[in-house]
């Protein structure tokens, strides 16, 4: 068990290095000289060279990468070109905003979609099953940002039940902050439930065919006991991996939801950085989101043995 955890943690390190190299190379491919971009059109000829030297842009690319990596490891993500502020503190602030929404949404989506998918599987090819699979397929096909706009239109504008302001810091007004989170969270819950329910259904059907389930039934256990005590853990394991993947990818995909509800989150920071050609911000966001994705998947893998003890062997 300890060995499994250790090897799994160590195996994340090369991935993180390759991810950082990819982000660095990608940023080097952006057309234009970062130093010239920072100084703008009014720069004197000598200034650009001086800044290039100061930023280390005159050094070999490999040296630049190592210097940058060294800075990143020590928590220095550089300064934003637009504001001049350090990137990391803002990344952290924005991350907490996005993460609150993403975690709440994934938790609720799991609590709703996993039982729905399992019940559908248990009632395979009956009315309940068709209803669940139908709703799941429809939800899977609705783009989350459009769903968000529709919920905003109906519950925010027409019915006026919920605020449309999107985001209020908890420190300012906890009640309003919670209320403002309902629409974005509900959007993501609906948008992500489809794929989770379908996965839960498919893996439950797979497990339900196995002999130990027949054996459990033959012992005379009730259907509910067979499903929750015997089938659940094995059926949930693949769904758990999918939930991890969704959780990680939402940190990037949430940009569209943050746009709909004007939420100052991580995804929006990245998109605004791309508009403004603020390359330290883009680089920081990409690296941060990709690192989080790797870490979330690592965490998911570390919990996996609790669901399925066979994987440590």
């Amino acid at each position, binding site marked *: 068990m300890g060995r499994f955890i250790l090897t799994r943690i160590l195996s994340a390190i090369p991935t993180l290095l390759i991810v950082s190299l990819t982000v660095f190379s990608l940023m080097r491919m952006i057309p234009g000289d970062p130093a010239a971009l920072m100084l703008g059109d009014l720069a004197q000829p000598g200034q650009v060279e001086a800044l290039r030297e100061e930023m280390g842009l005159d050094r070999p690319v490999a040296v630049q990468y190592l210097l940058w990596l060294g800075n990143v490891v020590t928590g220095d993500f550089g300064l934003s070109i637009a504001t001049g502020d350090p990137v990391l503190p803002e990344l952290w602030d924005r991350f907490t905003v996005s993460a609150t929404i993403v975690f709440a949404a994934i938790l609720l989506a799991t609590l709703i979609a996993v039982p729905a998918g399992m019940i559908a599987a248990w009632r395979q*090819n009956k009315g309940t099953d068709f209803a669940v699979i139908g709703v799941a397929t429809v939800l899977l096909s609705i783009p989350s940002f459009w769903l968000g706009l529709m919920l905003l239109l109906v519950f925010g504008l027409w019915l006026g039940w919920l605020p449309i302001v999107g985001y209020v810091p908890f420190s300012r007004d906890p009640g309003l902050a919670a209320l403002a989170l309902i629409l974005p969270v509900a959007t993501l819950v609906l948008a992500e439930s489809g794929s989770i329910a379908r996965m839960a259904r498919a893996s439950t059907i797979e497990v339900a065919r196995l002999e130990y389930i027949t054996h459990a039934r033959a012992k005379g256990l009730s259907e509910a006991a067979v499903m929750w005590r015997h089938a659940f853990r094995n059926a949930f394991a693949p769904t758990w991996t999918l939930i991890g993947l969704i959780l990680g990818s939402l940190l990037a995909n949430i*940009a569209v939801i943050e746009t709909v509800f004007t939420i100052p989150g991580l995804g929006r920071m990245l998109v605004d950085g791309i508009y403004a050609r603020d390359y330290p911000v883009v680089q920081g966001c990409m690296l941060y989101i990709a690192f989080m994705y790797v870490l979330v998947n690592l965490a998911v893998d570390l919990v996996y043995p609790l669901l399925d003890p066979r994987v440590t062997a």
Partner: protein
Amino acid sequence: MIARARRLPRLRLNALLGVTVVVLLALLALFGPFIAPYDPLKLDLPARMSGFTAQHWLGADEFGRDVASRLIVGARTSAWIALATVAFALATGTAIGVAAGYLRGWTDRILMMVNDAFLAFPGLLLALGFMAVFGASRNGIIVALGLAYMPVVVRVVRSTVLSVREREFVEASRVTGNSEIVTMLRHVLPNCVAPVTVLATTMFGWIILSESALSFLGLGVPPPAPSWGNMLATARPYINQAPHLIVLPGLCISITLLGVNMLGDAVRDWLDPKMKT
């Protein structure tokens, strides 16, 4: 055989709905400019944000442009981008996957290292990064999304090639004196057709969704050219005055995705018996 017959009704309904939507999309994409009642860029300022009228039967947008025409031409944009992107991802992904799986050794190791680096980026992130490099443009999206989805193709093709290359018929091809390239093209590659077809159908849906998301973020199809995603983006400030400008493009995306997803399920049931549920 019995099991197959019993599954047939649902499969047929899925496939039928999926095929209908995809055929409709193809027809709109091919003949859109001839069907569209107006030029999608033509301004009719007196009709700004009008609802459903005899003149503009799906209303007009914030510049008085005809919504029906923009939706029809937007279908062409989405379909063309998705098709080109799938083709790009399949061509590059299959070439790299076959090379890695068949040649093995260092080629495989280096290709897979780069591939896994790409796979380590979640969802839209890699596409957003590429858009930062290429800038928002039609060809930019195709290359950005193509490169973002290529690694999945590489994985699928490589694993199929790895499982096939040791089989007797491949050995037989070599023994009878066929060159490595002939063996690869004639005997290994055809085995990738089924898994790649399943993947391509699914990918078509992902790409329509990603393209509309990028366009919605202002990093996809640049206005004034219509795409379903950028129509949603430009109509967002007017959501209260003219909700139909938001409702209609989203419905188009959702119906298209529903059709593509159903077709995808049907294709998977048909070609990939292991995934059958």
